[in-house]
């Protein structure tokens, strides 16, 4: 085991970008690994359902070109987790194609491992039948129908499949859906570094410079793991790590900052200390890894619930604004009355900005009155045509609705755009967000590809 292990994290999410100067400064520190996480469920269920990335292809290619050419030249591993954002097959294929282009355009020679994270429905159904699926907090129990209706199901893999791929001689690892810290922690763990420290360091590095101050999702940072601590440093003079910024990061998007669960165990921070070092660095000690008795993977699945069409409009009329809570249900009733066979599952929703557009039912300011309102009409139906129709009829009805007391009779709505209605395509909902007990953490297949001067030889 070498004295220390340095990890370069170029950016918070692959495709968010980073300054070239920071990346070069990071490479000058001779890192042992370049890692990047590409994924999140934060943008909602659409991206997993539609098989699309929430990041931009040109910028993913830009970021990966820097990382892979530098990693191959330096002879160090490059680990990419949660390919394409959601990490299912279409996302993995998308990112794989980008890597092929980079290899070809730069004439690179390296071994690539591609690790899909898709879980077959059969596997999930078997686990469900055996009582090996459990919901996370506030998530309903999974049903056979939830599994069968899912468009894509992925599991967040842990460090084990990445370590296995590296053991097969891979230099670049492209993983499907992956526990974010694993992209950074797998290599040092395989070399004998402490798992608690490696995972906690990975947890911070996976967000790039977000944990520094001022924070940034588009800048590089370096983590140095030693036998009993890890040290965080920025790679730009614009920002520093402080004990507060580093500690506060464990709060981010997590329910309990002392216990951060992942595949096979959790990082325990109850004994963690954050100490300031000169040069805007922070040393972290005392984070422990607690293995769970049984190994659980987190499943993510989505199913299609229909098609959406929206129309955006505003009103500046004080009489209409004062009566808006009565007008909108009256309009819906009139629309449903006019449509010959509105399906009971067709949903019509109004988002009223200036009233409770942001907080909805949780909005505590129920009697606040704005001088103008934005009304978004949302139709959600079984087909795009039905959604277009419902949105269109609602829009025209609301535009000319003769509400009681009206004195502005030319039109009730101000549209910023023509066309006023926007078909938004298929709409999805989370069908699975559950833990699945598995016997083998390495249940994910590993596909090896050999690149010689940019050409693939399988």
């Amino acid at each position: 085991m070498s004295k220390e292990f340095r990890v370069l994290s170029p950016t918070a999410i692959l495709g968010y970008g980073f300054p070239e100067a920071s990346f070069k400064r990071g490479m000058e520190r001779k890192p042992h690994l370049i890692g990047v996480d590409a994924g999140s469920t934060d943008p909602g269920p659409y991206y997993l359902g539609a098989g699309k990335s929430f990041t931009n292809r040109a910028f993913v290619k830009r970021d990966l070109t820097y990382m892979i050419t530098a990693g191959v030249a330096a002879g160090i591993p490059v680990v990419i987790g949660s390919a394409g954002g959601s990490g299912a097959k279409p996302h993995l294929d998308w990112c794989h194609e980008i890597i092929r282009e980079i290899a070809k355009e730069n004439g690179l020679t390296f071994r690539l491992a591609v690790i899909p994270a898709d879980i077959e429905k059969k596997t999930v159904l078997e686990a469900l039948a055996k009582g090996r699926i459990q919901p996370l907090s506030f998530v309903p129990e999974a049903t056979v129908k939830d599994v069968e209706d899912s468009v894509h199901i992925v599991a967040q893999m842990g460090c084990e499949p990445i370590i296995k791929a590296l053991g097969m001689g891979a230099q670049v690892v492209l993983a499907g859906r992956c526990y974010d810290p694993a992209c950074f922690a797998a290599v040092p763990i395989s070399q004998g570094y402490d798992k608690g420290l490696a995972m906690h360091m990975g947890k911070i590095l996976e967000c790039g410079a977000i944990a520094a101050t001022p924070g940034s999702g588009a800048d590089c940072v370096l983590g140095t793991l030693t036998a009993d601590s890890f040290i965080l440093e920025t790679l730009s003079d614009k920002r520093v790590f402080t004990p507060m910024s580093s500690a506060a990061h464990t709060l981010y998007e997590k329910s309990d900052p002392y216990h951060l669960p992942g595949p096979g165990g959790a990082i325990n921070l109850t004994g963690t200390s954050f100490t300031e070092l000169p040069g805007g660095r922070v040393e972290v000690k005392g984070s422990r890894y607690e293995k769970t008795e049984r190994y659980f993977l987190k499943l993510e699945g989505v199913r299609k619930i229909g098609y959406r069409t929206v129309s955006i409009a505003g009103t500046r009329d004080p009489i209409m604004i004062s009566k808006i809570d009565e007008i909108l249900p009256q309009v819906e009733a009139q629309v449903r009355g006019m449509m010959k066979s509105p399906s009971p599952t067709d949903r019509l929703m109004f988002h009223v900005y200036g009233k409770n557009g942001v907080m909805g039912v949780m909005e505590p300011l129920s009697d606040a009155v704005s001088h103008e309102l934005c009304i978004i009409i949302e139709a959600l139906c079984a087909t795009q045509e039905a959604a277009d129709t419902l949105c269109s009829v609602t829009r025209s009805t609301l535009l000319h609705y003769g509400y009681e007391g009206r004195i502005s009779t030319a039109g009730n709505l101000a549209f910023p755009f023509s066309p006023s209605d926007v078909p938004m395509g298929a709409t999805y909902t989370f069908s699975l967000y559950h833990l699945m007990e598995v016997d083998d953490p390495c249940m994910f297949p590993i596909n090896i590809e050999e690149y010689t001067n940019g050409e693939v030889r399988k």
Partner: protein
Amino acid sequence: MSKTTKKRVPVAGQTAKRRITEVARVIRSKNSGPYELTLDIIFRSREEFELCRSKDVVNPALISKLYRIPESEILGIIWFEPAHAVKITIKRWIASGDPGETDIYGAQQHAPLLGIEFDA
């Protein structure tokens, strides 16, 4: 003008109030997965963190009132010393992106916390 500006004049026999925004430097909200919303208040200093923790300024009854949710929908309120912060995690009103969604990332649900006051 129907509205008058509220002046903070201490009244005899009443304790003066302090606002959370005087002692916090970060107040934010975000999803913690698609089914939970997590709220963070990061205090300016250890003293202010300890003061608010000792006074139990953030408690289930208050969160229940501010967010119009039953206390059973509060997963936890955790005081996190290393970051001088308190974290509140509640059930999301619907899963992220479900029909009726208003805030996919849950990043704009912090406003009710800004009005918290406590006895000085």
